[in-house]
């Protein structure tokens, strides 16, 4: 394996080289310092490398420009482009300029680097024998096939149980977007397909700044897709990183979550699957909820079959665990579990199995908050009451409680805008 590593930071070149050599001991790595050397010229043996890792800011040069020029060469190998976090338009432009993969530099871990290089350099045989790799390759090629009017699907950035997720862009202005393409097995499952389509129909109806914007949906060659806004700030899970957030910030996020719930409940919709991965941040720091895959219309007949429990056990309400009919207080409970996690950095309940965690929601009293968070105890208690009759009745009631008790904790003014 031969790798060309172009980055203006010596420490980063050293670190990435170390990661690559730890994985491929015979790797030959050329650390290329763009502060010392110009863009590789025609005589540079670019084709002798298997992969190029190229940074987007090169001190003296523009990584995107280097990418465009290198990609014009017939002998150009695969290029992994390193972009800035929170500026996805760079990633859009890199993929349009021919990058074969991209990673956000600030979030680049050893695992992400190795996985990306492995994907880019895998032989045909490796792509066939490794099920994970084969699945990712299938995802990448699917994204390249799907045609959406006015939208360019650029690169697969994630996979979930129901859909593959792609970075895409609006062709007019390169605005980063997300395209979700439903898995074939879900398309074949009439019930799951109905849920996915409901997600689109419901979210489009909501029109709230606290809910992900949906720009369209449709089908292409038996592929069902959804186009939605891209969240450059990532999700709450990433923001938490297993640690608490300062109480004032936790309360700000929680308050925004309450506005979001107020908006969706007002439209008669329950989310039913609130969790850190479903709370997304925009570049301006505002929060929106996503993934209404299992949300349902409150008024609709309950189509959840006996014994089928949807949701994520860590955030499930007791009535959800029991498979009882739900009302909006189920989301209030899940939001309370999220608040506890934001304040403490810990899960409300832990367990060896999903079932064990779920049973705690039914039978175990929540642990008290640590002393320094005691002022939030009453709030958390009333959110995660096991008896929903004793819980806050709706988001407005919670917002009122926050206003009366924690107004001074607001780090800035959060307005409800529509």
């Amino acid at each position, binding site marked *: 394996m031969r790798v060309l590593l172009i980055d203006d930071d010596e420490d980063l070149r*050293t670190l990435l080289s170390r990661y690559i050599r730890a994985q491929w001991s015979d790797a030959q790595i050329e650390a290329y310092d763009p502060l010392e050397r110009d863009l590789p010229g025609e005589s540079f043996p670019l084709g002798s490398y298997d992969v190029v890792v190229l940074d987007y800011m090169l001190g003296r040069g523009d990584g995107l420009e280097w990418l465009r020029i290198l990609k014009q060469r017939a002998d150009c190998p695969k290029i992994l482009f390193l972009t800035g976090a929170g500026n996805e338009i760079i990633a859009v432009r890199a993929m349009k300029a021919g990058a074969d993969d991209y990673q956000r530099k600030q979030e680049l871990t050893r695992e992400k680097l190795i996985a990306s290089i492995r994907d880019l350099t895998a032989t045909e045989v490796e792509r066939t024998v490794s099920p994970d790799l084969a699945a990712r390759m299938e995802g990448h090629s699917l994204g390249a096939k799907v045609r959406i009017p006015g939208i360019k699907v650029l690169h697969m950035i994630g996979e979930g149980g129901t859909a593959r997720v792609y970075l895409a862009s609006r062709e007019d202005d390169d605005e980063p977007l997300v395209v979700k393409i439903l898995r074939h097995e879900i398309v074949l499952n009439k019930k799951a397909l109905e849920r996915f389509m409901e997600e689109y129909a419901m979210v489009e109806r909501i029109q709230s700044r606290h809910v992900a914007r949906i720009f369209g949906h449709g089908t292409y060659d038996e592929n069902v897709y959804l186009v939605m806004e891209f969240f450059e700030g990532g999700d709450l899970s990433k923001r938490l990183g297993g640690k608490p957030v300062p109480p004032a910030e936790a309360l700000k996020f929680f308050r925004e979550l309450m506005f979001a719930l107020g908006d969706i409940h007002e439209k008669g919709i329950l989310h039913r699957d609130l969790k850190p991965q479903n709370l997304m941040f925009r570049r301006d720091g505002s929060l929106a909820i996503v993934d209404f895959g299992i949300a349902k219309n409150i008024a609709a007949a309950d189509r959840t079959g006996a014994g089928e429990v949807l949701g994520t056990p860590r955030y499930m309400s007791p009535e959800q665990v029991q498979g009882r009919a739900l009302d909006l207080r189920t989301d209030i409970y899940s939001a309370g579990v999220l608040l506890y996690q934001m304040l403490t950095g810990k899960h409300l309940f832990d367990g060896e199995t999903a079932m064990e965690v779920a049973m705690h929601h039914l039978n175990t009293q929540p642990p008290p908050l640590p002393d320094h968070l005691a002022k939030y105890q009453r709030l958390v208690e009333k959110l995660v009451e096991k008896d929903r009759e004793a819980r806050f009745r709706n988001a407005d009631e919670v917002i009122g409680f926050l206003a009366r008790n924690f107004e001074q904790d607001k780090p800035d003014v959060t307005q409800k805008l529509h």
Partner: protein
Amino acid sequence: MNAEDYKVTVAKDIADLIPVFMKNRHKEVDALRVALAAADFEQLRQLGHRMKGVGNSYGFTHVSTLGKHIEEGARSGDRAALAATISEYDEYLAKVQIAYE
């Protein structure tokens, strides 16, 4: 900052890279001070940007956060904020405690 905020955990297999990494960070503080004295905001922005990229990669999240503040301060030309952030960076480097696991 709390005492906990000064604790950083680094993977053992890159422990040998840390002395050079730290030496470069101290040099960075000097470079930041020189750039601020010269009101060279472009240089400050580039240095901040580099801190942002390299800090997280080595597990020094706070270096990235300070890099972000420096980049923003350089963009807005806020000398007072930049001076405060550079001092904070210097203090952080003096107090940081590194554990290897």
